[in-house]
């Protein structure tokens, strides 16, 4: 327990350092590029130039590894024995919620390593974007009913203008097609907060945009393409963790 306590303190301090780095102009973009691709791909790129963010990330990995080791020993020596000896629901819940936490972390790790992630891809109607495994996505058309001049504003200004009465996100959509080896796999529409799916591939619309140069009448879209094999499992285990923690609180609410 002592080791777990100090590891918790260490990881909190580590995240505080992350906050300071992410707030600085110098390292903000490093974290942004880290989020824009799979962490494993970012590591491959970053391994060439050793940056402070890379050192911070490797430190985080080390702390997470020690936490995992601590969990294994703690589960074996304490939680599991208590659960088996006492055979009470409180001990069982305590073990289960710790176990589920490790599962969630494992899915986090999986999402950093497996699949693919392409971010901030700008497409105008008729444009295509090719990515791994001979996949390509084509923006067939854009249906946009609101004032397009807002789309030329900076992000924060755009956010101020995109109120419910001025931006009707349910009415604005893009029609896209997904191909592999030039063979159509699926086509359909995507809206803000309503991504396009094909198996484990999600194509999400981040925002509508208008190129700064040129006189375009119809906007294009900025998209993310993500293949996350663990997303569903992650959310299910996350929900189970919440239920387990809530059950633990309920079963231990009354003072013994």
């Amino acid at each position: 327990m002592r080791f777990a306590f100090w590891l918790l303190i260490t990881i909190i301090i580590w995240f505080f350092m992350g906050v300071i780095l992410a707030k600085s102009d110098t390292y903000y973009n490093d974290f942004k590029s880290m989020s824009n691709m799979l962490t494993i791909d970012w590591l491959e790129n970053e391994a060439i130039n050793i940056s402070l963010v890379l050192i911070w990330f490797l430190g985080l990995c080390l702390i997470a590894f020690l936490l995992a080791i601590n969990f294994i020993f703690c589960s074996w020596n304490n939680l599991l024995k208590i659960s088996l000896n006492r055979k009470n629901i409180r001990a069982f819940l305590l073990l289960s919620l710790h176990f589920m936490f490790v599962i969630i972390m494992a899915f986090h790790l999986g999402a950093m390593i497996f699949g693919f992630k392409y971010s901030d891809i700008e497409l105008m109607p008729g444009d295509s974007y090719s990515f791994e495994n001979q996949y390509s996505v084509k923006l067939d058309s854009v249906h946009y009913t609101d004032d397009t001049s807002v789309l030329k504003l900076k992000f924060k200004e755009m956010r101020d203008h995109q109120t419910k009465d001025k931006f009707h996100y349910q009415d604005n959509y893009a029609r896209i097609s997904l191909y592999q080896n030039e063979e159509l796999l699926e086509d359909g529409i995507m809206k803000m907060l309503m991504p396009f799916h094909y198996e484990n591939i999600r194509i999400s619309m981040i925002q509508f945009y208008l190129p700064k140069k040129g006189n375009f009448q119809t906007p294009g879209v900025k998209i993310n393409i993500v293949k996350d094999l663990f997303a569903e499992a992650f959310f299910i285990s996350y929900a189970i963790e919440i239920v387990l923690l809530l059950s633990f609180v309920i079963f231990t609410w009354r003072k013994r």
Partner: protein
Amino acid sequence: MDTTVLIINYFISLALIFMNALFVVLRKYSVLKWFKYPALISSGASIVLTFLVAGHLPIYNKFTSLQEVVFILIVLTSIYTNTNKVKVQNINTMWFFILFVQLYVITQQMEPNNNYYMYDNLFVVLFFQFRLISMAMFIFALGNYIGAFKKHLHQDRRADILHRARNYTLLGAVVYLAGEFSGSFWLYLWYGDSWHWSKGFFLASIMFLLSMISGHLPPRYLSGWKIKTILSSSPLMLITLIYLIAH
């Protein structure tokens, strides 16, 4: 209806909360027992008025969110205020925390944020609502931990208060996690992935990990109630500061 109504209601709430805190100082517990209701109604009205003025529940904006935090704090305080004078005294220090939060609102820009189009998405609403409910629970737990330091408190009564603080720390963590789940799903719908390496993600992780500290104290810190209480309440103090200042 415009922002002026919200500001007027805010100052009415502030005055009522101040009166309640004053009754605590003056030890007028029988008055306090009934006078909490106007404060409860006024702070509850801030949520309704926010909806009428801005078209959405308190979301993101501190002026409206903190008033909802105050409302939940008054609800929780009222639940544990009953006719037993001893129990009333044990919970009444919460009024100073409620007054502090309500006063802190003055430092914020006194207007609700605009009705951003995503604010009618269920997961966006849940993310912000769960977060502020959890903050109220953490502050309530903190108030109880600090209340346990009152002099001449019977050992059993102190144990009750500390257990209540422990319960609300954990319940706050559950609600906070439910909020993070909703936020994660919001990001998943918007960007296609459930989390980003960002300042917001690090702060959110820090706040959750801080809420877990009291449950992971080494055995040698568990023997004396004072050190245990200090070590359990300090993380909650940090969570509150992060929410009020950094977040």
